[in-house]
């Protein structure tokens, strides 16, 4: 179960709305390497993780990703707050506005809706942890791309920089989880059996 704390993980107070930027940053809300994908990936994979350290890590990182999902939502919300009709037309925000007004809806920067096919839950610890490491790197790249676009606004730059740094830490943690896993498998053949499916001899 979960408990909610009514605060953002990183302080946020955006002074200047920017609908153009919001349309790019929304990719980390519902895009292929976004925070919704991240949290659903880890929180789905954890049930079949054979080792408690790894299942707990997926739970704790998956939980932090939910806080990132909230923070990205807050960034997009503040960037699009109180937009005038003129700003909506000029910034290219009109197509989004038609379907969602100023509400948050999980989609990629290119308008593609959120889709569970953007992540995997394979039931094999090596496959899943390798996917998780790649996911953290892809999210880091996305944040790098966003950072190049937001240089001029420290109100947006700083929280994005924070989120980018978290991807690097999570990549490290998943790497450690993979090492813990390999230490417990047959050192001559990691793939000899899948500890999430094949039964160990008692």
């Amino acid at each position: 179960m979960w408990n909610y704390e009514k605060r953002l993980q990183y302080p946020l107070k955006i002074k200047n709305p920017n609908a153009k930027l919001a349309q790019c940053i929304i990719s980390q809300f519902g895009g292929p390497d976004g925070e919704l994908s991240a949290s659903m990936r880890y929180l789905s994979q954890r049930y079949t993780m054979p080792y408690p350290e790894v299942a707990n890590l997926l739970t704790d990182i998956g939980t932090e990703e939910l806080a990132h999902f909230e923070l990205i939502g807050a960034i997009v919300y503040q960037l699009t707050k109180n937009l005038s009709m003129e700003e909506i037309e000029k910034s290219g925000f009109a197509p989004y506005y038609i379907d969602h007004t100023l509400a948050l809806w999980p989609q990629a920067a290119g308008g593609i809706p959120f889709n569970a096919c953007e992540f995997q839950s394979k039931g094999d610890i090596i496959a899943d942890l390798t996917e998780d490491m790649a996911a953290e790197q892809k999210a880091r790249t996305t944040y790098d791309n966003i950072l190049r676009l937001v240089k001029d606004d420290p109100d947006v730059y700083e929280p994005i920089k924070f989120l980018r740094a978290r991807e690097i830490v999570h990549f490290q943690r998943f790497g450690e989880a993979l090492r813990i896993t390999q230490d417990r498998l047959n050192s001559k053949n990691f793939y000899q059996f899948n500890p999430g499916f094949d039964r160990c001899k008692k």
Partner: protein
Amino acid sequence: MMSKEQEKLLYEISMIDFAIVELNEYLDTHPHDTESVQYIAQYNRVKHKMMREYTSKYGPLAVRYAEDEPEWSWALTPMPWEGGCK
């Protein structure tokens, strides 16, 4: 609008909680690191104290901290994403 004092306490809670989040993830893959276990216990105590102080001054940040009060301030305090562009 939040007062400077409220903003400061909220910021300090965020910092302490970040240390807890980071240590917790680290401890998942290093559960035998006694020094870090002590650190997280200490930060947990500090956070608990700050959360109680915040609740008594500005209302609860989490339902489990809610206190006896004439009305349910949890429902009345603004959401955390409010406060940006005017």
